C-alpha cells in the first residue's frame, strides 16, 4: 500500500492558508509552529490506483467495523443501563464481521475456516469501489475520508480489544481448574482445554495479558498513540491467532480480525518508520486532521468521553463485580459448606448390591469432589459422550456453566445441584451437554442417530424432578449471589429458567464430622438407587494454588 508515499516529497504546503484542514508537522519550519491550514485543492493528488484501492478499502473496512446483525442491536436496545451486567457491554464490544442476512453458517464448506464472511464483504467492497470510482472519478484525493476511516477502525479495534482484555484483566476468561479438572489426567483433555487451563493456573499472568490488551485498546482511541496501540495489538492478537490454530481453540477468526485491523492502522506510519529507522533518511510526516467547528468539537468530545467512560470506567467496574461475585465460566452460587473438597468412595451400593473398589469398574464412582460452588464431580470408568465445546458463552444459570466438564474425558462427570439444605436434598442435573448438542449434530451427519436415541430414552426415564417441583429452589438461586452482582440480565434469564434435561439425580446427604464423612442416598440418572459413603481426603496438589481467586464462596 503506497497511498501515502507521494507525501514524502511534498514540500512547501505549510504556508498556505485556508480554514478547511489542519496539517500537522509538515516541512521545514520552526518547531513552535506545528500546525498550518491549507486548501483542499492544494493537497497533492492521489494516483488513480491509490484512489481505487482506497475506495475499496473504505467500503471493506467500514463493513468490517460496523455490526450488521440483529442480535447486536437487540442487545444494545434492551440493555438496562441502571442494572448493568458486564456482558451487556462485552456484547457491544464483541461482534464478528459479516452481514447478518448474508452470514455464512459455520459448518458450510463456504465458511472457509470462518473467513467466508470476510470474502463476502471483500467482494461487495470491490464492486462498490468500482461503482464509486465511476461516479466520483474527478476527485483528486481522499485525505479527510482516510482520516475518518481510520477513526472508525481505531474505535472498532480499540473497543473490541478492551472488551476482550477486561475478561483477562480480571481473570475470568480462563478459570483456575476446578477440583474435578485437577483430578483429570493430562491426556484426557482436548488441546483447547489444555491451553485454557495452562493460562488458568497463572491468574497473574492472565492479568498481565489483560493489561496489555486493554492498554493496546486505549492507545488506539487516541490518534497520536494509534501506531503504538496497533503494534501491541498486532503482536498480542497475532500470537492468539496462532494459538487458536495450534490448539484448535476456535477463536482464530475473531483474533485474526484484530490482526487485520491492526495491519490496516499501520499502513499509514509504517513507511515513515521504515524510512527513518531503516533507510536512515529524514522524514517529514504528513498528517491531516479535520478542523472542527464548535458543535462538531463538542460532539467529538462527548462521543469520545462516552466511549472512554463506558469501556474503561463502567466496564472496569462491572467486570470487577463479575470477577468478584459471579465469574461467568464458573458457577456463582456457594456450594453446601460441609460438602467441600475431595472424597474417597468407601462404600458404593447400587440397587442394594455392594461393589468393591476397582479402578476399572464401569458402575462404581471414584474420585468424588464437591466444588466450592454448587457442583459435584466424580469419575466412572465408562466411556461417555463428550462435550467438546469451549464451555463459554454467558449463561446466568449455574447449571448451564459447563467449563468444568467441557473438553474433558476420562470418565469424568459433573453435576450441578440445587440444594435443599432444610431437608438435606441435592437436586442434580448433568452438566455434560453433549446429549443436548446431539440434535444439531444429527441434522448434519446422521452419523450418531443410534446414540441419540439411546440417550433420549434414558432421559425420558430419568426425569426425576422438574422446574415446577422445585420451583422455589430454582428461583431462589437468582438471589444467592452478592446483591452487588444483581442485574436485569440475570433477572431476565431466571424468568423462565432452562433445565438442559441431560440426566438428573436426587441425592439425600448426611454430613458427619463437619463433612469429613458424607453419606449419600438416592436415585441416579438411570433411577438406580445409590448408597454411597465418602471420606474426605486431604490431597495436596503439586500445582500451586491460585493467589487470585474469582468468585466468593
Amino acid at each position, binding site marked *: 500500500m503506497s497511498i501515502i508515499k507521494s507525501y514524502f516529497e511534498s514540500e512547501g504546503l505549510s504556508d498556505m492558508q485556508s480554514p478547511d484542514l489542519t496539517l500537522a508537522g509538515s516541512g521545514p519550519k520552526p518547531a513552535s509552529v506545528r500546525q498550518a491550514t491549507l486548501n483542499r485543492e492544494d493537497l497533492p493528488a492521489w494516483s488513480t490506483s491509490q484512489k481505487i484501492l482506497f475506495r475499496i478499502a473504505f467500503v471493506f473496512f467500514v463493513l468490517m467495523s460496523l455490526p450488521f446483525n440483529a442480535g447486536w442491536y437487540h442487545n444494545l436496545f434492551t440493555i438496562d443501563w441502571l442494572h448493568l451486567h458486564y456482558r451487556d457491554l462485552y456484547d457491544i464490544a464483541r461482534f464478528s464481521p459479516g452481514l447478518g442476512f448474508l452470514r455464512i453458517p459455520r459448518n458450510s464448506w463456504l465458511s472457509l475456516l470462518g473467513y467466508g464472511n470476510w470474502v463476502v464483504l471483500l467482494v461487495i467492497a470491490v464492486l462498490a469501489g468500482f461503482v464509486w470510482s465511476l461516479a466520483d472519478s474527478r476527485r483528486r484525493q481522499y485525505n479527510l475520508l482516510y482520516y475518518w476511516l481510520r477513526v472508525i477502525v481505531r474505535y472498532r479495534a480499540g473497543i473490541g480489544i478492551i472488551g476482550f482484555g477486561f475478561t483477562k484483566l480480571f481473570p475470568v476468561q480462563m478459570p483456575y481448574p476446578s477440583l474435578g479438572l485437577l483430578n483429570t489426567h*493430562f491426556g484426557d483433555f482436548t488441546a483447547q482445554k*489444555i491451553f485454557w487451563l495452562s493460562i488458568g*493456573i497463572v491468574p497473574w*499472568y492472565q492479568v*498481565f495479558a489483560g493489561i496489555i490488551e486493554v492498554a493496546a485498546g486505549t492507545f488506539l482511541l487516541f490518534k497520536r498513540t494509534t501506531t503504538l496501540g496497533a503494534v501491541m495489538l498486532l503482536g498480542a492478537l497475532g500470537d492468539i491467532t496462532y494459538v487458536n490454530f495450534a490448539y484448535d481453540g476456535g477463536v482464530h477468526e475473531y483474533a485474526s480480525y484484530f490482526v487485520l485491523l491492526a495491519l490496516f492502522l499501520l499502513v499509514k*506510519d509504517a513507511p515513515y518508520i521504515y524510512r527513518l529507522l531503516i533507510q536512515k533518511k529524514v522524514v517529514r510526516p504528513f498528517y491531516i486532521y479535520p478542523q472542527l467547528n464548535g458543535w462538531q468539537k463538542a460532539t467529538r468530545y462527548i462521543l469520545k468521553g462516552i466511549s472512554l467512560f463506558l469501556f474503561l470506567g463502567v466496564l472496569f467496574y462491572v467486570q470487577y463485580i463479575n470477577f468478584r461475585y459471579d465469574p461467568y465460566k464458573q458457577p456463582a452460587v456457594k456450594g453446601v459448606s460441609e460438602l467441600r473438597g475431595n472424597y474417597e468412595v468407601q462404600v458404593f451400593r447400587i440397587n442394594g448390591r455392594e461393589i*468393591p473398589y476397582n479402578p476399572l469398574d464401569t458402575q462404581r464412582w471414584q474420585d468424588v469432589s464437591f466444588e466450592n460452588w454448587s457442583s459435584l464431580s466424580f469419575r466412572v470408568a465408562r*466411556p461417555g459422550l463428550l462435550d467438546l465445546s469451549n464451555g463459554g458463552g454467558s449463561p446466568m444459570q449455574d447449571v448451564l456453566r459447563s467449563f468444568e466438564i467441557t473438553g474433558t*474425558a476420562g470418565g469424568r462427570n459433573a453435576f450441578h445441584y440445587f440444594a435443599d439444605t432444610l431437608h438435606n436434598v441435592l437436586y442434580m442435573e448433568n452438566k455434560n451437554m453433549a446429549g443436548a448438542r*446431539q440434535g444439531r449434530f444429527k441434522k448434519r451427519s446422521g452419523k450418531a442417530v443410534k446414540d441419540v436415541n439411546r440417550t433420549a430414552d434414558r432421559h425420558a426415564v430419568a426425569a426425576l424432578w422438574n422446574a415446577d417441583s422445585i420451583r422455589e429452589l430454582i428461583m431462589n438461586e437468582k438471589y444467592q449471589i452478592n446483591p452487588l452482582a444483581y442485574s436485569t440480565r440475570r433477572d431476565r434469564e431466571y424468568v423462565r429458567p432452562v433445565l438442559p434435561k441431560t440426566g438428573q439425580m436426587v441425592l439425600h446427604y448426611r454430613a458427619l464430622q463437619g463433612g469429613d464423612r458424607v453419606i449419600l442416598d438416592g436415585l441416579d440418572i438411570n433411577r438406580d438407587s445409590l448408597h454411597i459413603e465418602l471420606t474426605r481426603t486431604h490431597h495436596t496438589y503439586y500445582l500451586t494454588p491460585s493467589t487470585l481467586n474469582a468468585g466468593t464462596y
Partner: protein
Amino acid sequence: MTNLSEKNPATEASSWRNWEKYGFRFFFIFFALSVLPLSAAYWRNLGAIYWLHISYEDIFDITRYFPWISLAWSGYASLIIIAALALAGASGWALYDRSVCRRKTDLDKLHKWLRIILRYRLAIALLGYGLIKFFPLQAPYPSLSNLNTAYGDFTRWKLFSMSLGIVPGYQRFLGLIEMLSAFLLLNRKTTVIGAGIVIFFTGNVFVSNLAYDNGEGVYSLYLVIIALFLVSFDLGRIYSLLFQQKETLPADDALQWPPGWRANGRLAVKSVLILFFVIFYGAKTYSAYRLGDYYQLPQRKGLPGAAGVYTVSVFKWNGNDLPYAASDTLRWKDVIFENWATLSVGTSRHLVLDSTNKESVATGDLNRKYELSGSGGRQYYDYTVDSIHQALYLHNKNPHYPEDQWTLYYKRQGNKDWLLEGTDKRGNTVQVTLEKLARRYLLKEAAKTGRTELLRL
C-alpha cells in the same frame, strides 16, 4: 539545516547531554561485564566440549552465557551485583574524563562498538533458543506417564512445558519469530525492529517465567535489558515522529570500516558467526530433530513389547495380597512402560519432587529427568534389562529416593500381560500381575477428528 538530500542524509548532531554520558558509561561497563564471557566455569565447559563431535546441546550452552555471579534470588542478584560494579566504574570513569590533563574518551565510537557487540550477543541468544524451537526440541510431547498423571499433580512449570509440547507447530512458529528477530539484529539497519520484537516476545517470556516459576527468568530479563538498550537509541526519534508528528532526522550508528584488513576482518568475523550459529547449529538441531534426539528424554530402548499402561490387578507385598485401594500408599496403582527404558508406578504417596526447571542439557539417560521433573503421583524408575535371567534392575530416578531400587523378574502372560516378581533393596518382596489397558486419549482423538465431531471416550 544542512544537506537533506537522500543519498547523504543529515543526521542528528551527536552531542551528548550530561545524563546521557553518565548513563552510557554505566551501561557500557554493565554490558562489558555481563556480555564478555569472564566466567571460568563457562570456559571450563567450553574446554570440555569434544569439538570434533560437537552436539547441538553444546552449541546451545555456548549461546546461553550468563554471568552467574550469585545464585541468590534465582540469579537476579547477579544482575544487581554487576549493576553495582558498573555504577562504581562509571563514577570513576566520569572523574577520569573530567580531569583536564587527559584526553576524553570518544563516547560515540564506544557506543557504536557497544551496539555491535550487543546486537550479536542478543542475536546469538535468540538463535540458541529459536532453532531448538523451530525444530521442536525444547518441549517434547508428554510421555505416556505424563499423559496418565492428574493435572493437579504437576507443577506450573511442567504444565507450561507440556502444554507447549503438544503443539510442535506452535513451537516452530515461536522459534521462527526468535530467528526472525535474530536476523533483523544481525543487520545493523534493522536493529531497532529486531530489538523491538525482542522486547515484546522475550518480555512475554520473562513474565511467563515469573508466572510459571520457570528457571529462565533472569536470563530472559537480561536479554530484554539488552533489547531495551538497543531500542533506547531510537526512542527519541520514534517519539518525535509518531507522537509529536514532526520532522525527524535519522541517526547514524554506522562504524566506519576503512577498507583493507579491517573491513575484511569484519566480514570474516560476521561470516564465521553466521556460519556457526545459523548454518552449523541449524544443521545440528535439524538432524537431532529428525532423529528424535530430544535432550530431555532417555535414549535406551525399553523392554521389548512392553510399552503401555497396565493396571495392577494382583499385588502381593511380602506375601500379603492387597486389594485395590484408592489411597493405599503401599500398593501400586498402575504401571507404565515407556518406549524407552523407564518404568513408572502410580502411587498415592505424596512425593518430594525433582524439579529442575532450567534449560540445562543433560547427558546420560539417568540425568534425563524431564519426565519426572515437576510431576507427582508416580515414581519413575530407570531400568536395565537382563534378558538372560529375564530380570529388570530398577533404580528410582528421583534423587530424593536413592534407596528405592528393585530387582524384578518378568514373565509374559498371554500376549499382553506381565507377571513381575522381585525384591527391593530393603528386602521387601512384591508379586504383581499387570493387565494391559487399551487407553485412548482425548488429546489425540480430538486432534484427529476435530472438536465438531461426536466423541465417545
